[in-house]
């Protein structure tokens, strides 16, 4: 062995890290990739902006006969936010990692296995916050106003982001279970019942029959209710229901994703 070799072997020593350190490392990498993935971000941003404009333009006059308590623009802005943040995830990137072998590279390091998942979710959280901003700007431009002020706007964005984060458990579970990009992409279909069998277009009291029943059990109904309440004032009951619905969904989906992670990372 040469002197250079000896120096190299004595200078660099790997050390144990911790869960938080590993999560930050994985998140840094995932966040750095976000601006490089325009093909993913472009359509993701287009959809909520499109729905906000189209829904308001096509339905606001018809909704004038319904007592919403807020303008139809304000009624639709939470729908656009939910569209902006739901299913927005780096699960597709994780599938690519699995396919190109980078996931195996990570698995041969001492990285915390849970950090592999949480690090991606931190990036998702950053992304949904970033995607919420242009939607909010469009909403303000169309006339939406918060009686709860800037803090209300912040809470509005955070509840939306938490909902989005809770939902990501589904695409991650599919990604880790299947390792198939097609399966992850098609997981967006699961969102349709959440998005449309709810109070997206009319308040709960104006829904009838089975749609009314389904919307009662749809957590999106309570998320939209909580978000809409922020236009009027601070309503602890509505906000509490929104958070509870978000946490209930998150508990279910994140359990699925953690089980899928365990299956994927188990060496059995």
């Amino acid at each position, binding site marked *: 062995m040469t002197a250079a070799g000896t120096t*190299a072997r004595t200078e660099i020593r790997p050390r*144990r890290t911790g869960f938080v350190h590993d999560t930050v490392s994985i998140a840094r990498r995932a966040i750095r990739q976000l601006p490089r993935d325009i093909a993913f971000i472009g359509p993701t941003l287009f959809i909520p902006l499109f729905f906000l404009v189209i829904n308001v333009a096509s339905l606001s006059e018809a909704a004038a006969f319904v007592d919403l308590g807020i303008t139809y623009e304000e009624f639709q802005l939470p729908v656009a936010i939910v569209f902006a943040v739901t299913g927005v995830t780096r699960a597709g990137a994780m599938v690519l990692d699995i396919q190109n072998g*980078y996931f*195996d590279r990570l698995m041969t390091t001492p990285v915390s296995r849970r950090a592999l998942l949480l690090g991606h979710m931190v990036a998702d959280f950053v992304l949904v916050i970033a995607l919420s901003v242009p939607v909010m700007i469009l909403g303000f431009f169309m006339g939406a106003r918060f009686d709860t002020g800037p803090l209300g706007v912040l809470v509005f964005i955070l509840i939306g982001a938490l909902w989005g984060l809770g939902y990501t458990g589904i695409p991650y579970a599919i990604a880790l279970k299947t390792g198939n990009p097609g399966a992850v992409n098609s997981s967006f279909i699961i969102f349709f019942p959440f998005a449309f069998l709810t109070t997206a277009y009319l308040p709960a009291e104006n829904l009838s029959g089975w749609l009314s029943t389904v919307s009662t059990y749809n957590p999106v109904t309570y998320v939209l209710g909580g978000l809409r309440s922020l236009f009027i004032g601070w309503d602890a009951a509505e906000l509490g229901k929104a958070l509870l619905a978000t946490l209930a969904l998150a508990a279910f989906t994140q359990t699925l994703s953690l089980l899928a992670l365990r299956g994927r990372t188990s060496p059995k």
Partner: protein
Amino acid sequence: MFPFAARLAAMSTPHAAAVKTEGLRRTFGDFTAVDGIDLDVRPGEIYGFLGPNGAGKSTVVRMLTTLLEPTGGSAWVGGLDVVAQADDVRFSIGVALQEAGLDENMTGREILATQGRLFGLNRAEIADRIEQLAPILEMRALDQLVSSYSGGMARRLDLAAALMHNPSVLFLDEPTTGLDPPSRLRVWEEVRRLNREFGLTLFLTTQYLEEADELADRVGIINAGRIVAEGTPGELKRAIGTDVVTVVVDGDADAAKAVLEGIAGIEGVDVFGDEVRVGTENGSRALSPVAIALGSAGIKVRELSLRTPTLDDVFLDVTGTHLDAGSSAEGSST
């Protein structure tokens, strides 16, 4: 730091070899991919694991690198049990798997930095380590996305990433598969340098005979999940004979064998299809008697050649089949 207790335990166990396995086995349902393999790789050694596609090489590597649990037997790397002490094992190994495990959406520097951070290196150490690994890397391309890299550049980056934390054992799973000859030669040179300068133990799988012959201190030949021969390339080839006369006949090869076994100086005759392979101490002296004996017996000879033994001859000797055509072509040049 890599836990002192684990290092101490590693030193005090009877398995002080860099890589050791006893009856290592892996099944997938009814299929047995690895069937009771015993390995004993010494520290500082380049061990070549040679075999055709599907022989079980990658499965062995995945077990030794903690990616896959054995279904039978035991394995230690640096004296650490790959199942019970998997996390400790990961500190002492570097791994470059068959598919270069790189994210094309990252730059080379980002991949190395992420790898370093996961092993607890700080920013200064990461920068230092990248400088140390400069001979392997294409430094000009380090800040470019991996998607712009050639196959050889990507493979060298993969190698550098595996070395970021200064491991003591490096696993290379078919490191040159898919590379053009110049890139292959460059990887070979890096492998030699890593072993020579850093004293790294290298566990190298390959389906290329020439690669095993050129790089490995010792070679284990694996076929159908079992090690069928093991030794230095020289030892393995000497077991065949100093020279090999190969005869391809039209007709009964077994009859040709019977004829040739009677010639003085012939050490062994084996038949593989229409090919008769003759091991001898002095090939040039045996060539004429072989041709005359076959001609006298009325056996038509289609091809007659003389060469030194290759690892393909060893493989043929122990399995009855050649390695696949591509690898044989590579290997026959030796």
